């Protein structure tokens, strides 16, 4: 039929025009955004490259066999495979069953498989970009460390692109099947899959850290490889990737190309199967998903409401009600609290069992190091949480500006309300985690107190940055919070949050580290400085560090909030 070929060409025309217009618009109106985004990508790439080059060169000093590299890459690509499969599935599901574009295209002449192909290309474009950014520095660093030839570097990009298609095709098929079989329960399926994945990852990690033997001894290595043996299953695409990478890097071109073609042909097959599934089931699945209607009565949350009113009694009643509204929205979106709960839950489980994971915790320097690593992980998780969920809040609120403007509250109160909501939630979760970690590590009371102050500064600072920048760089056009978070404002928010964390944690962690290294070893170089520190001197330097962190905290609360307030007061809706 003529419309079949013309619809494919028209959808290609559409993607082409949208891409060109987006770039042209960005060049014309958002050059700064473009350069900041490119700069961030470059910093990320160089950072990853440096980290992995150092790692591979270190590993090379042990003269490891190819087999061990295959284990490492097998694990790396297996992780990527699962992440890509799940993320492409989610993107395809959202795009096909909840997107306005798909809904419109379904009323137009293109066949269902053409519509699917259009959305698949889009999602693979996003995923491919991410994989290139993540995978290319790793593979380039590996190539340099093993002195790979030109053929290896020429094959990296096609290899990664071919690899993306395989989990993408599988994830897309599963997404359509979920729409077809359980259209009313996509979030339940996602939650179940997440739980299964987390249990598997947790179990796997547990097994790895419990590997018997002293670390880095031959026996330990044998045991470790035994526990990683599943990554070498011949039917796993991650194994094919590992074989292709190692083969090509060692000039076994034939072997490398063979696995490259195995991956490419399987990716093509996965795409073909997904297209067939779309051709047969997409419209029915779409109709079923559209028929989904949430008629579930929502549970009243009087207890929670009362708790919020009590905790925030120092704020005006309308602001308290806005916080109640935010809390209800948060709790009624499992995509938000489930991620929060899962990651913080995993950290809590790890912190509670921290003594079982390591035998080195009797050493003060290790204990101190692990305590700051735990604090940093919690803070990083908090930064992603505030960037993902708190930053978009003001943008989403802008859609209801007509209503908010009619409420008896000042705009500034709305902003402070968001800040209070974010800070209280963060403080409760992070301080609890940190206390578990510090108590399990049996830290001295003074350090526990310092950590508690530092975490409070971090919670307040991150909340203020996200709320303030959220108001300063809002995106009122977008209704999807994940897209708001992934945009320029969200990315900048994450970068600023990370810089803030580096300074605040670094200022306190450095004197602690110098002091404890001195106690432990009394060694040479900069450690000699610390070994001469008395406890009083340490306390003085720690005080300076805490002072810097608190100062940074105050700046990070006041500056973004002031920026946000000013933007919000002048905002015309």
């Amino acid at each position: 039929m003529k419309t079949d070929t013309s619809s494919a060409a028209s959808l290609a025309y559409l993607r082409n025009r949208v891409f060109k217009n987006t770039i042209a618009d960005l060049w014309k109106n958002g050059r700064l955004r473009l350069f900041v985004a490119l700069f961030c990508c470059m910093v990320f790439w160089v950072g990853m490259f440096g980290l992995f080059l150092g790692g591979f060169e270190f590993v090379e000093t042990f003269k490891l066999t190819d087999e061990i590299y295959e284990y490492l890459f097998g694990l790396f690509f297996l992780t990527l495979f699962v992440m890509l499969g799940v993320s492409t599935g989610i993107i395809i599901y959202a795009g096909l069953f909840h997107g306005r574009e798909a809904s419109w295209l379904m009323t137009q002449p293109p066949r269902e498989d053409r519509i699917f192909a259009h959305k698949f290309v889009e999602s693979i474009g996003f995923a491919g970009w991410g994989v290139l950014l993540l995978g290319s520095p790793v593979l380039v660093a590996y190539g340099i460390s093993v002195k790979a030839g030109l053929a290896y570097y020429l094959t990296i990009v096609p290899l990664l692109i071919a690899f993306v298609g395989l989990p993408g095709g599988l994830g897309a098929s599963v997404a359509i099947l979920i729409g077809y079989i359980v259209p009313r329960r996509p979030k339940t399926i996602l939650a179940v899959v997440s739980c299964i994945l987390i249990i598997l990852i947790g179990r796997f990690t547990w097994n790895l850290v419990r590997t018997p033997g002293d670390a880095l001894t031959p026996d330990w290595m044998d045991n470790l490889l035994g526990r990683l043996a599943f990554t070498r299953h011949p039917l796993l695409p991650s194994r094919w990737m590992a074989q292709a990478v190692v083969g090509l890097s060692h000039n076994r071109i034939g072997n490398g190309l063979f696995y490259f073609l195995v991956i490419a042909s399987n990716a093509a097959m996965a795409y073909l199967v997904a297209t067939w599934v779309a051709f047969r089931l997409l419209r029915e699945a779409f109709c079923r998903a559209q028929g989904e209607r949430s008629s579930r009565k929502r549970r009243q949350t009087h207890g929670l409401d009362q708790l919020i009113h009590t905790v925030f009694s120092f704020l005006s009643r309308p602001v308290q009600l806005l916080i109640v509204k935010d809390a209800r929205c948060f709790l009624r979106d499992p995509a938000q609290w489930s991620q929060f709960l899962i990651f913080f839950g995993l950290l809590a489980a790890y912190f509670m069992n921290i003594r079982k994971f390591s035998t080195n915790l009797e050493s003060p320097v290790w204990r101190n190091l692990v305590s700051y690593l735990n604090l940093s992980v919690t803070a990083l998780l908090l930064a992603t949480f505030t960037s993902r969920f708190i930053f978009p809040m003001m943008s989403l609120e802008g859609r209801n500006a007509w209503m908010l403007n009619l409420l008896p509250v000042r705009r500034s109160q709305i902003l402070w309300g968001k800040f209070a909501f974010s800070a209280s939630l963060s403080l409760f979760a992070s301080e609890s985690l940190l206390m578990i970690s510090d108590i399990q590590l049996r830290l001295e009371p003074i350090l526990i107190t310092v950590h508690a102050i530092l975490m409070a500064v971090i919670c307040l600072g991150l909340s203020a940055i996200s709320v303030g920048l959220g108001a300063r760089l809002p995106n009122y056009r977008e209704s999807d919070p994940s897209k708001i978070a992934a945009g320029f404002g969200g990315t900048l928010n994450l970068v600023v949050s990370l810089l803030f964390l580096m300074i605040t944690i670094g200022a306190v962690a450095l004197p602690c580290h110098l002091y404890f290294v001195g106690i432990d070893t009394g060694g040479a170089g900069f450690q000699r400085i610390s070994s001469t520190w008395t406890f009083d001197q340490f306390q003085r330097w720690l005080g300076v560090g805490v002072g810097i962190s608190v100062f940074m905290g105050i700046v990070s609360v006041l500056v973004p909030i002031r920026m946000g307030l000013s933007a919000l007061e002048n905002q015309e809706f």
Partner: protein
Amino acid sequence: MKDTQLQPRQFGQPMIRFFDVTKQFGAKTAVNQLNLEVKAGELFAFLGPNGAGKTTSIKMICGLLRPTSGQVEIGGHPAGSQESRSCLAYVPDQPFLYDKLTGREFLHFVTQMRGMDKTHAEKKIAEMVGLFEIEGFLDELCEGYSQGMKQRLVFASALVHEPTVLVVDEPFVGLDPRSARIVKQMFVDQARRGVAVLMSIHLLSIAESLADRIGIIHQGKMIATGTLQELREKEAFGGSLEDLFLELTGGEDLINPSDKSPDAAEEEGLP
């Protein structure tokens, strides 16, 4: 595939048909055994209170929802089939446009997707641009358009491929009086050319003045169909369409007694 281009002699041929169509969402019945025909050259106004089942019915016409039982046909083809979509134009109440396309690029995209010959497409685009007066902003990105500009472009894109069935959901949302007049005239012209037009609308005065036939749906059931005159006669009602609508959909308490027919008023003991 059947010929989707209507000849004048095909006026009166059923283009939209509902055969005993029921649509349920869980325990809720949104559309209940609906039977309906809209013929070529007919302008049919679909009325009903909020939640009566209008949008559900329209989505079944467009193939976005499947009936739980019964069948929907468009131009003799099952709704949702490629043939039915080829002859159908649908304008939703919230128009969809690509933010990063210009209006002109969007029209080109639609004509290309519809498999139109390039010369013919250019001619039709020029015709639509003139009809809906969109030349002034056609080369700007759609993200900057107002609701009315978007609505006019969406109408242009819906008609550019000369559909034989036009389905519109609340077509006058966001249109200024001039644009609304253009759209009203366009509906009449399309119907006179042999297009089957089904419009879901809440503005009863427009339905009264434009529609050849009116259907009133309430709680999923079609409770009345016919010309305005036929509805009045059937219900023995002398008032406006608005009063008739309220009478049929349970809003009798809002009707001015003087608007009721003398017989009905007498039955209720009114002076």
